């Protein structure tokens, strides 16, 4: 390949291979394992998974280019995650750190979570050291800034948030190899934030939107969560859960997977109370694991729907 040897410097062009097995690089980094795990454990989120695969593929290709002596200057991997509450932004951030670490893009692969409180100081001269402290901790890994729009308070022009943003921008630009910054928050507020901070928006290459979950996905998520805690649903309970999800989605303050988790927590409480109240005292492992329709139907969400049927089965 004449083009390759032309770009390579004469010294080490000798020991550079002419072709490279891309699959070997991918295999070596175990990235498939992480991506498959992501597919298996995260339900739904198709656009997010697609983007992650793209990034993983690009990083593997960059590695191959590097080994063949082509220009392999890194692309900026700063990201913004927008989506409603409970759509898995934090979980995905943790996974991304793993993927980037496997592919050798970040050196350590740890995640440092920060909010406005960790970055912005109380008085003049307090913000810069605070922000730098967090940045230093995140070096070699991923800095995850949740609810990033709180950094910028347009109503107060002397707010120190602007200072934190400027320091962030500087490090995001100059030390791209040292850390990856992920901003997360609700869609419309993040859009406002980016509009008022165009510098921030232009330095973030990947804007990933997390869609709301469909009822089926919520059902699958709840089952998987329950399985993780060694709980299971019987058939009646499954039907009740589907009804519950359909009702809950329409209610205010619906927070996707987080709401499901809370519902599951409450069902576990009711199940414990039911077993506790069972006077016969005999129980087995199966009974301790099974959530029944009664545990779910006692929920206020379903009770409110059918006031005539407001019985208590505890």
């Amino acid at each position, binding site marked *: 390949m004449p083009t390759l040897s032309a770009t390579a410097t004469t010294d080490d062009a000798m020991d550079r291979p002419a072709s490279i097995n891309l699959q070997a690089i991918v295999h070596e980094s175990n990235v498939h394992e992480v991506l498959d795990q992501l597919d298996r454990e995260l339900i739904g989120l198709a656009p997010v998974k697609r983007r992650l695969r793209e990034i993983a593929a690009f990083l593997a290709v960059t590695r191959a280019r590097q080994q063949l002596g082509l220009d392999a200057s890194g692309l900026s991997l700063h990201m913004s995650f927008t989506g409603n509450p409970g759509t898995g932004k934090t979980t995905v951030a943790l996974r991304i750190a793993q993927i980037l670490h496997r592919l050798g893009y970040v*050196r350590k692969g740890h995640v440092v979570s920060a909010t406005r409180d960790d970055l912005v100081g109380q008085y003049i001269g307090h913000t810069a050291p605070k922000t730098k402290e967090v940045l*230093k*901790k995140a*070096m070699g890994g991923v800095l995850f800034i949740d609810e990033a729009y709180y950094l910028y308070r347009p109503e107060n022009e002397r707010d120190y948030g602007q200072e934190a943003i400027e320091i962030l921008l500087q490090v995001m630009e100059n030390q791209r190899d040292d850390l990856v910054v992920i901003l997360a928050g609700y869609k419309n507020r993040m859009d406002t934030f980016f509009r008022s901070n165009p510098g921030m928006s232009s330095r973030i290459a990947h804007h990933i939107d997390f869609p709301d979950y469909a009822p089926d996905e919520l059902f699958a998520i709840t089952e998987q969560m329950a399985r993780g805690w060694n709980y299971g649903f019987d058939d009646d309970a499954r039907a009740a859960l589907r009804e519950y999800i359909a009702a809950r989605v329409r209610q205010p303050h619906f927070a996707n997977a987080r709401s499901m988790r809370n519902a599951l927590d409450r069902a576990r409480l009711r199940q414990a109370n039911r077993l506790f109240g069972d006077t016969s005292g005999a129980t087995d492992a199966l009974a301790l694991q099974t959530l029944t329709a009664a545990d779910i139907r006692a929920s206020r969400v379903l009770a409110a729907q059918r006031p005539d049927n407001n019985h208590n089965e505890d």
Partner: protein
Amino acid sequence: MMTNTGHRLTQGQFSFLPDLTDEQIKRQIEYALGNDWAVGIEYTDDPHPRNTYWEMFGNPMFDLRDPAGILMEINSCRKTFPNHYVRVTAFDSTQGWETPRMSYLVNRPKAEPGFGLAREEGPGRQVHYRISSYATDKPEGERY
């Protein structure tokens, strides 16, 4: 040291070698972090060997995972005190107190005049030796 070989202060690790490059410093910090040691940055303009306690530049950096953050701090210390001695110390806390495990210079003044040796005769013609840096004859802040 008193003969001021090569007009260079020789204190701590690697001090007889040429100055470490940033890449080499990074590797040393990597080693320290790999052992769970906390890294601190200190500076002084009084290089007397008995001057053990140098000024701290910021807090010792606990719970850092990557040398890039520490190098960032080293560079900001170099920028603030371009003509001081700056050293990096790694502290080991496994014994319940912080024990320095590594210590090396990462910045030195442009000109290092070295040390003078003074002999003082005491009672019974006993001779005491005293060394002092030529630089410390001047007041603090104007030494280098």
